[in-house]
């Protein structure tokens, strides 16, 4: 099975790097909430995607998660 975000072999849903990036983005959210006091996931993802410092795999995962949230809101 291929990764949902690239052509590499998937471990479950994603390849090794996108899987690790998913964990990094989720852990990052906890840190951002602690730093800001309160912050919703949508704003967090938006900021992470907009930052030029965010790594390529983390950015791709953040975009994917943002898309998933938009899809849920639409339905």
């Amino acid at each position: 099975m291929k990764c949902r975000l690239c052509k590499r072999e998937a471990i479950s849903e994603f390849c090794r790097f996108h899987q690790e990036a998913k964990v990094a983005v989720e852990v990052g959210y906890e840190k951002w909430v602690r730093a800001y006091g309160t912050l919703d996931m949508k704003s967090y993802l938006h900021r992470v995607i907009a930052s030029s410092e965010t790594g390529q795999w983390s950015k791709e995962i953040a975009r994917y998660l943002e898309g998933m949230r938009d899809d849920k809101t639409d339905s």
Partner: protein
Amino acid sequence: MDGARTRSGYTLVICEKPDAARRVAEALSGGRFTTSFLDGVAVFRFEFDDEDYVASSASGHIYSISDPFGDRSVYPIFDAQWYSSDLVEEKGGPIARRIAVIGNLAKGAGRLINACDNDAEGETIGFNVMRYACGGREESALRARFSTLTRDELVEAFRNAEPQQKDTLARAGRARHLVDFTWGVNLSRLLSQSVVSEGDGYRTLTIGRVQGPTLNFLVSREREIGLFVPVPHWRVEAVFEVQGRRIPAKYSKERFETKREAEQIARDCDHREGSVTSVRTSTVNVPPPPAFNIGDLQREAYRVFRLPPNRTMQIAERLYLRALISYPRTGSQELPPSIGYAVILRGLSRIVGYSTPVGAILRGPLTPVKGTKTDAAHPAIFPTGETPGRRLSSSEYSVFDLVVRRFLAAFGPPAKKEFTSAEISVAGHKFFVGGTKMLKLGWTGYYGKYSQTKEVESATLAEDDSLRVSSIGVKEILGTGPRRYNQSTLLEKMEREGIGTKVTRAGIINTVIDRGYASGDSIVASDLGLLLVEVMEREAPAILSTGLTRTTERDLEKVESGEQKDKELLRNTVRTVALQLEQLHSADESLGKELSSAIAGRTFGSALGPCPVCKNGVLKVVKSKKTGKRFVGCTNYGSGCKASAPLPQRGVLRAANKACRHCGWPEVYVATGRRPWRLCVNRECPSKREKAHEVQAV
């Protein structure tokens, strides 16, 4: 030298390169020598101390290690031997002719002097020439050792030429070649053949005991960058007002992990009165840096001129061959008195631009600062004091000037810096205003434009001065991710980790780039590089380990000092390589599939190289969802980087893994017909503008 003209035959001097042989002839004969060309090989005849001399040279390594098969599909290879390099590298005639000429000259020579460079490589080259080209005369040959090609040093070196005391240095040098060949040829053939077996044609893929860990450094960094998620922190910055002056100040705590805490301080202090509670001034002596060893020179040349380490090495070698600087392949940071400080300095004073600093140095005691690193064979790099006879190219002049200035700096007194810090108290909070001032230039004056002397003006404040916070703000800062290596920082990392030698490191970096495993000034690991490391981690992790190569380096040092036999080291190498091959061979099929896929850019999409606009993203081939057309875009597009470029819509594209030398944008190969052509993707590339002008002019 006694026994003038009594020895049968002449003395044959063998240097490492033709330029060195000419220089030796010139120096020993006082300029009275004849040059002839035998089969295209330069031979210099002259008299020295009333004896007849003939000088000729190798041209670097004229013997190389290879296997008896000459077929790149055959492995494993454990019975490698020395062959003349023309057979190995298919260079044809020139090397065979050179070996024949040296062989003929040796027949008429009463004695031989090995005058190759005084290090392990030079020892290896000289040993091989004496053994294979001169009919096994390596034990009777004399050795002349020198660090500069100046007349005085060469005369002394040749008058004191002695038989080799021990051949451990040559043994270590030869063993290094054998070890590296055994690693390189076996693993590289396995990788290349695994791709061939997938039917994707031949592609040279290499990995070795130093290349593996070097690539691993790049890939590990690439992974850290790819996974990085920035986290915000905050800084409190205030501007104070006193007697109409505005003074920026920093809060005593540099970073706040929560926004609330930082904002609370800003609220507490906004428009409040404060007072200066203390003003502290301290002075620091900054000692001069030692003279360069080769690693320091390569790093500094990269910092100030952006010269790649390999290029710096080439230029330094040219300057050495012109007798302008000492032997550059040294690890030492020491300048011993025996080099003759005063003579060199007086020589330099005759060169435009150096007379003032030299005059100042000559008025004081001549004691250069020493670094901690030493080298038994050579001192640190120093100028010889000779004036460049003919014009230097701009890069040659840059490196020459850098070496001279660093040499002068080593004799300079410490620089003196003053740091001022005023503490301001506002509502129980502390702020600081700081400044830096150069009190005494010291050695930085000699080092000139290469010194980093940044001054920060400090506000004149006195204790108990009253100030008012005119504005205060909270600045959000997003954490910055790890930085990519450039050639200089990668070289430093290799040195710190103890892999490779001062001579080989720059070449290894070049190979990693040439193979397409990485590209760019700010080095980005390619998809192929990422995948190769992933495969090695899984199948044969020892190849990536710094531990293994470090152990080999230590063993080679033991061979050099005579503590270990070279045969023992070679046996251990064969055992380790055989084990790695066995592990990789069991995964041969999947290995070929994965590598072929990465070569064809099928694995991750097609990363082309680092983005020259935002310096942080990666340029990739992207397909427009709207039009279906392909173009180049930056991975930081969503973060505001607008770098993009159109691409040819027809033909097969492949990353060239090279940055354009005109603009730094990546290049691609486009295959539409029989031969692929290389293209810089930047529409605004100056080279394209030049071509457009040419067309207009026509």
